């Protein structure tokens, strides 16, 4: 321990009278002298972030702490989203808005004060958001988006991620185009755009990204544990057990993995190497396990029966990963390829060699077992993992050599993480926002198959999306939102939006649209494209959640459109 506690009696060292001093000194500790912070104690930053580090680990936190986020449009939803990014500690944020604060802004946006009215809203919100976390840097940019897009496009490409909150539809598309085109150039930055639109109780989040890699999707289903094709030491161990001579204690503590490996091995031996295939065979397999039970309540056997399906789920590279291996960017790698692409390329080589299986994972699920048997089993898996890891690293070094990269280009930490969690990686290929909005391809197909179902919230959400799209087209034509003229009869605007929606649906002039669309238009225009505080809170949470996923490369982001109907607390995700 680098700092030993100063001597002296305990009573002297621990004052009982505590007085307030300046806010950065812990008086209680100050009296113990100038001892350094002991090495085992986390620093203030770690303690501030403790609860989130347990979710995305320090690798995720490092990514977050180097992220620079731009918010275009300074409204309640955008500021709520920023709040949720400033708190966990991004590096920097900028708010871009030319507007001055109005009292209506103050009414809905928590990060403004009545005194803010009349001052630039970007400056005001930056001021209040910065208070949330002294480690985060923030700055306002009081300027029009449209002119900045032309005069200084490189401003936008200096960020890690951009949020566009309720900005004019035409400029939103221009911004999306700029980012998409930038990422097209070789080595160009791939900057995700999260576009928010909300009106009253209805909200929508769209994400544009060209290509996004996920290093850990945190999949629900774990790997297969090689029950169907056990590695030799595992099979040997399972077969070596003599169930008949065991006492009941020992018998009821054999891990279910061992029970299944053993049963599968015996089954294969007597059936020419085949595993249970038909449902009849599967039932018989389970029955054979049940027959080995000594008494009715052996928990390990119960677990084995519940997990038996794993025996006939084949140990192989997961389907999603196989798709990735077929991708051109993985098949043909170069020195400018991303680490994940190189690792996947190596995986492809790894599985091309017998036994054509992905690397063994070292982790075991929790199971009913004695400690000794559990640890023994765990060691078998760990040893096999080490062997596979060594083989993978050998291949990787050859692969790197072939593309003129040095050994060690990819940090060991990353390689090990990949090998441990082969099933948990992903690459997402996005769609340009313009294409997904303009109804090319997927949206048209969705319309063809569309059928309203009052019990399936996603059908309402889809209709809401179309109502939002039609309203955006209305805005582009009129430079205002439908229903925004307070005195005017809403129905006139609504009819026009309905006409636009007909066009999106591909209907002829005289055809009627279904009631659900009329209702959704009414709900969307009723909201007047204003921001309800609860909707802002909700969407701000969703947007920040997605931003964190994108920045940390953990978890699968919502690709690419989410609609939220808070009237009914429903949501749906679409890929257009």
């Amino acid at each position, binding site marked *: 321990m680098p700092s*030993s*506690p100063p001597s002296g009696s305990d009573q002297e060292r621990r004052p009982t009278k505590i007085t307030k001093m300046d806010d950065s000194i812990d008086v209680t500790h100050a009296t113990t002298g100038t001892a350094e912070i002991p090495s*085992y104690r986390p620093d203030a930053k770690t303690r501030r972030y403790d609860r*989130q580090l347990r979710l995305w680990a320090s690798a995720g936190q490092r990514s977050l702490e180097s992220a620079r986020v731009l918010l275009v449009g300074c409204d309640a939803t955008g500021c709520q989203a920023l709040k949720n990014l400033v708190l966990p500690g991004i590096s920097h944020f900028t708010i871009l808005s030319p507007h001055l604060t109005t009292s209506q802004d103050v009414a809905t946006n928590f990060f403004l004060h*009545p005194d803010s009215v009349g001052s630039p809203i970007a400056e005001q919100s930056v001021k209040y958001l910065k208070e949330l976390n002294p480690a985060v840097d923030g700055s306002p940019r009081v300027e029009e988006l449209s002119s900045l897009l032309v005069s200084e496009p490189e401003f936008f490409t200096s960020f890690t991620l951009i949020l566009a909150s309720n900005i004019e539809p035409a400029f939103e598309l221009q911004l999306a185009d700029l980012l998409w085109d930038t990422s097209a150039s070789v080595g160009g930055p791939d900057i995700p755009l999260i576009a928010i639109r909300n009106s009253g109780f209805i909200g929508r989040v769209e994400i544009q990204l060209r290509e996004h890699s996920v290093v850990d999707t945190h999949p629900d289903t774990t790997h297969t544990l090689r029950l169907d094709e056990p590695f030799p030491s595992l099979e040997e161990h399972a077969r070596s057990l003599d169930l008949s001579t065991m006492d009941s204690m020992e018998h009821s503590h054999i891990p279910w993995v061992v029970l299944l490996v053993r049963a599968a091995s015996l089954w294969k031996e007597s059936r020419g190497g085949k595993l249970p295939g038909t449902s009849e065979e599967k039932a018989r397999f389970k029955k054979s396990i049940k027959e080995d039970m000594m008494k009715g309540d052996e928990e390990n056997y119960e677990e084995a029966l519940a997990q038996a399906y794993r025996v006939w789920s084949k140990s192989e590279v997961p389907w999603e990963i196989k798709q990735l291996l077929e991708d051109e960017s993985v098949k043909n790698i170069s020195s400018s390829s991303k680490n994940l692409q190189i690792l996947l390329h190596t995986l492809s080589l790894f599985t091309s060699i017998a036994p054509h299986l992905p690397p063994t994972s070292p*982790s075991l699920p929790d199971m009913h077992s004695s400690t000794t048997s559990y640890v023994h089993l765990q060691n078998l898996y760990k040893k096999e993992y080490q062997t596979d890891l060594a083989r993978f690293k050998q291949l990787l070094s050859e692969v790197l050599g072939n593309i003129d990269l040095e050994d060690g280009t990819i940090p060991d930490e990353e390689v090990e993480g990949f090998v441990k969690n082969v099933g948990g990686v992903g690459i997402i290929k996005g769609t340009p926002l313009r294409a997904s909005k303009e109804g090319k391809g997927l949206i048209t197909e969705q319309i063809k198959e569309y059928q309203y179902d009052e019990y399936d919230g996603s059908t309402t959400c889809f209709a809401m999306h179309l109502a939002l799209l039609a309203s955006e087209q209305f805005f582009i034509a009129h430079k205002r939102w439908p229903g925004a003229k307070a005195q005017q009869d809403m129905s006139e605007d609504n009819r026009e939006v309905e006409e636009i929606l007909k066009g999106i649906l591909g209907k002829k002039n005289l055809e009627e649209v279904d009631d659900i669309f009329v209702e959704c238009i009414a709900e969307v225009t009723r*909201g*007047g494209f*204003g921001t*309800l505080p609860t909707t802002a809170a909700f969407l701000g949470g969703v947007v920040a959640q997605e931003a964190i996923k994108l920045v940390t490369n953990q978890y699968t982001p919502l690709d690419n459109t989410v609609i939220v109907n808070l009237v009914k607390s429903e949501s749906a995700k679409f890929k257009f």
Partner: protein
Amino acid sequence: MPRSSYTKSLLGPELYQKVRKTKILVVGAGGIGCELLKNLVLVGFANIEIIDLDTIDLSNLNRQFLFRKPDISKPKALVAAATARHFNPTSGIDIHARHGNVKDSVNDLEWIKGFGLVMNALDNMDARRHVNKLCQAANVPLIESGTAGYLGQVTPIIKDKTECFDCVVKPAPKSFPVCTIRSTPSEPIHCIVWGKTYLFGKLFGEDDEDMDTEELDKAKAGGENAEEIENLKKEAAAFREVRKNLGGEDGPQRVFHKVFNEDINRLLAMEDMWKKEGRVKPVPLEYEGIMNESFATPPLRQAAAQQPNVNGQAQTNGNGTEKKKGLKDQRELSLKENLELFIDSCKRLSARAIAYPDIPLSFDKDDADTLDFVLATANLRATAYGIANKTRFEVKEMAGNIIPAIATTNAIIAGLIVMQSLNILRQLPSLSSSSSSEASTSAGPAIRSVFLRTDPIKPLGHSIPAKADPECSVCRDVYIPLKVDLARCTLGTFVNDIVKTWLAEAEFEGREEDDEEVVEWTIFEGGRLLADPDFDDNFERTLEDLDVKRGKMLTARDEDGKYRPVHFSICEGDSQASIPYSLPSTPPLIPLLPAKPATREPSEEITILDSMPPATSTSVSEVTPISSNTAVGTKRSAPDDGDVKDATAEEEQTKKKRKVVVVDEDDDFEIL
């Protein structure tokens, strides 16, 4: 300009009127509570009471956005309200903030009846169940919520319409056999539980000899090794001796020697114990040897057993690789460092014990002294037993049962709570006196339970809340507010005038008009039997004398188990009135108990949820509320974050008088 004109037009005048007028109670000013308070204020709720007993800690600041660093150690409720007011100074919003425990006796049935809607933003089962019961008794709608990492949920609970919080059985806490913890640990968690629940309590907690003996006798009766149990009893007696000398200069060293050398040697002497399969003999530790680094560290049993993760979230730590890198608290300590930490933390804790002899210390994951102690203790014990050591980061998570918590999930959940609150308000009778209440309840969207999931296709799920379980002993029982002057009302008055007379007039389900049946009642307060038909010894004593307090319940149970129990909730009475109590004008309907006796009588034990995630805010401690807005500071935090201890001499007095019964609610490991 009216600040909420947009919201008003969108909600409609009638609902908006309810928003402005309905009195709201928010229980908890933590992660969800902060978000919720902000949303309520922005939507235009104008009459809010918020209560929380906790003070602000540095680890709150990554999500509880109404708090700043200079607020550390101040009461959460007061700071949250002050910040929320600051952002909305002119909107005519009244936030009544209280630093206190929702379980305090002043928070009785009459109090909860004053609210139109209650919102729970809690992080522990005990307080959740308490508020649930209060709301059921008072027939006030409740919105229950919780988050864990990326998951969250919102559940409306309305008497007679939905199931209540206790209708659903909650999973039992993780438990370990007593001998595994005390004599034969084989996993790091066993060592941590031992340090946290056993050794810590023995040295610094309330010394409860009876409970200890009882626990051991129970274990013995449950078939655990008798010799081992006797041995443990001796050990416990020896502790009392060590504890006396703890404050002395070599006190901590003596504790070390007793615990890690003598006790282990005594265990080793029991040859039979180590013959069992899988048992590994521990090695006694030696103070001098460790200090001069001549002590040979016992080998690890086989390989390091990876602890199956505690709460399903731990995998993300990516432990293996991170230990080497960076973060201070993710480094493993050497044996010598652990020993030094043990000695040092013992000294720190015993100094605190001496300074405040009336406040038994208890483990708190955010109290650095207690965490250091548990860390060092667990690792020393693990070393002796050949079990892998854990880092501070890991021990904190395992001992504190930490639920990961982030801003985004809380924001989403708090948004959903307010949406559900609007749905509930829509269905409540109108507050305006002019229109008839029947006509003014508009249908609106149905009330729903909403779940936030990690499902990338459908992030929100919802369900119509289930109907109440007919066997539920919380929401199906009968509750009656009893305003009573406890100093004047005798138990005899209660039994004769209230139970035998007033209650006899009640309508009993299934009873014929001319049925002469007389129900015989037994009277309980909590688990205490006060009277039954053959036991009237206490009749002359006043309720006060019998220690029946405001906020508690006197329960009348039918001797034959035919009818539902009737709970009289004790509220503040009028000391001037001629009759020392007052009751509702009409007696209730008393339903029949279901044919099968209810088996799920909720225990008084605290359990922790696995399926429904606890929220992130307050931790419950039974602390007498103090009304000043100064810091409470029974915790001591690590020294490096700029914590401010804001306390006046006057408050020092308060502190000494207060008795902290339970501090950390996350204590979830039960030892069988």
